[in-house]
């Protein structure tokens, strides 16, 4: 029998894990950093965010005031930003990737004998997650409205003669569906819908709460997936709007419109 010295486990990053634990925090670090750079650039760019019936989700709702001289995105982005920053899933992701508390399970993290987590200082702001959820839900309502706008040619909203389905329609609807899956599967929403109750059988209302809570729980089980795909979809919708606005080509190709039907019937 040979003897080997016990390695020190007190230094940050020390572990005896033999699996690939570095990949997850590294991926998070790269993706969130790239998204933050892209989002910041787009928020300050203050251009190429609106064309025809497409309005980038980064700039929606478009808040334009005479007293505000900067990009309107700076007024609206803090809301979804706060919602995601205080989201229970993203907290796991960025605490691991950026703060090393811990980087991965059973990997020595940033040891601090005075650690207080989210119970003091700026971190207590994590407790406003549900208020961020309320505000983000209002913004989401506007994004649904924007998506419906794409169903009609620019300037003809709700005029069914101008009904159309364009690539933008698909991009915007996919985005709002994914954002809804993320928002309504959030832990704060789950709590408010029924998680706050101790009894689900005590009244008709609590039985209804149970039914809603169970549905939200199903969504919540995949909250991580919703968080990522909705992040990519919102970026995708912005990229699409920018490309159409900047280059005009592809000028949001129409896949289906009432004109097409009319022409078909005439033939």
């Amino acid at each position, binding site marked *: 029998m040979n*003897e080997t010295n016990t390695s020190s486990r007190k230094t940050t990053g020390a572990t*005896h894990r033999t699996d690939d634990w570095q990949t997850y925090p590294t991926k998070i670090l790269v993706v969130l950093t790239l998204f933050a750079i892209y989002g910041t650039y787009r928020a300050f760019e203050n251009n190429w965010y609106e064309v025809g019936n497409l309005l980038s989700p980064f700039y929606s709702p478009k808040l334009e005031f005479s007293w505000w001289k900067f990009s309107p995105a700076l007024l609206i982005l803090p809301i979804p930003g706060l919602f995601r920053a205080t989201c229970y899933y993203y907290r796991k992701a960025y*605490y691991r990737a950026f703060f090393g508390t811990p980087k991965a*399970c059973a990997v020595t993290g940033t040891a601090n004998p005075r650690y207080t*987590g989210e119970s003091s200082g700026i971190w207590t702001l994590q407790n406003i997650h549900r208020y961020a959820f309320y505000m983000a839900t209002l913004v989401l309502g506007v994004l649904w409205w924007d998506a419906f706008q794409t169903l009609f040619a620019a300037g003809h909203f709700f005029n069914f003669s101008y009904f159309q389905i364009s690539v933008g329609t698909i991009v915007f609807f996919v985005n709002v569906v994914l954002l809804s899956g993320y928002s309504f599967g959030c832990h704060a929403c789950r709590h408010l819908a029924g998680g706050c109750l101790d009894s689900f059988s005590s009244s008709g209302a609590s039985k209804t709460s149970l039914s809603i809570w169970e549905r939200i729980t199903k969504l919540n089980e995949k909250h991580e997936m919703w968080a990522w795909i909705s992040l990519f979809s919102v970026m995708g919708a912005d990229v699409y709007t920018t490309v159409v606005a900047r280059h005009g080509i592809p000028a949001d190709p129409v896949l289906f419109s009432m004109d097409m039907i009319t022409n078909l019937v005439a033939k």
Partner: protein
Amino acid sequence: MLEARMKVWRGDKNGGAFKEYKVPVETGMVVLDAMHYIQREIEPDLAVRWNCKAAKCGSCSAEVNGRPSLMCKTRMEGFAQQGQEIMVEPIQAFPIIKDLVTDVSWNYEVNKRIQPFTPKPDADWIIYQEDIERVQEFRKCIECFLCQDVCHVIRDSNRKDAFIGPRFMVRVASLEMHPLDTGDRLKFLKERGGAGYCNITKCCTEVCPEDIHITDNAIIPLKERIVDEYYDPIARFFKHVFVKK
């Protein structure tokens, strides 16, 4: 027959080292079997805590290749077939007694600080399944303390003075969500239990051998209840007006 190369930590509170052993691997063998082989055939003084060998008693918690695991639930074949060395060491968050045995008595002291189940005096003991289902998940806990071991607040920062740890967040959740319980543990949880110390990194959930969704179903709902009580005046108003405990 496959032979596993094992490194087992031997020592006590004064220090120790990994010792290497070669153990024959049989089909279905788990790490705890290997420890028994070492005790039986090589070194009878190897200290291992175990009891049921069926992943139900929570005694044989250790770290296998750095991962907090139950030794009775960790198969040898996977490691041995890949020619991997198997490193077995005691859980890191608690003081060593000897070899793989640690002193987890702190946990029992924490448990005593939690207000026990407090039913209404005139409680109707007929309980509907939908009311008790959430709590039943928490009752699966076998107190292996792997969640306590992996929690960085306890493991890295050693804040045992301020945070009760995931195991006891689960216990508090099982009481707070019980339809017949009348106790209010939120003040305790916020001020002395250190619920705010948890930063939701979900390691406790990852290592739980009973697959309890500790973070999503116990800790986060408790944090949300604390928000109701201390950070959300609107929810607090509605709760006090409309919700009867």
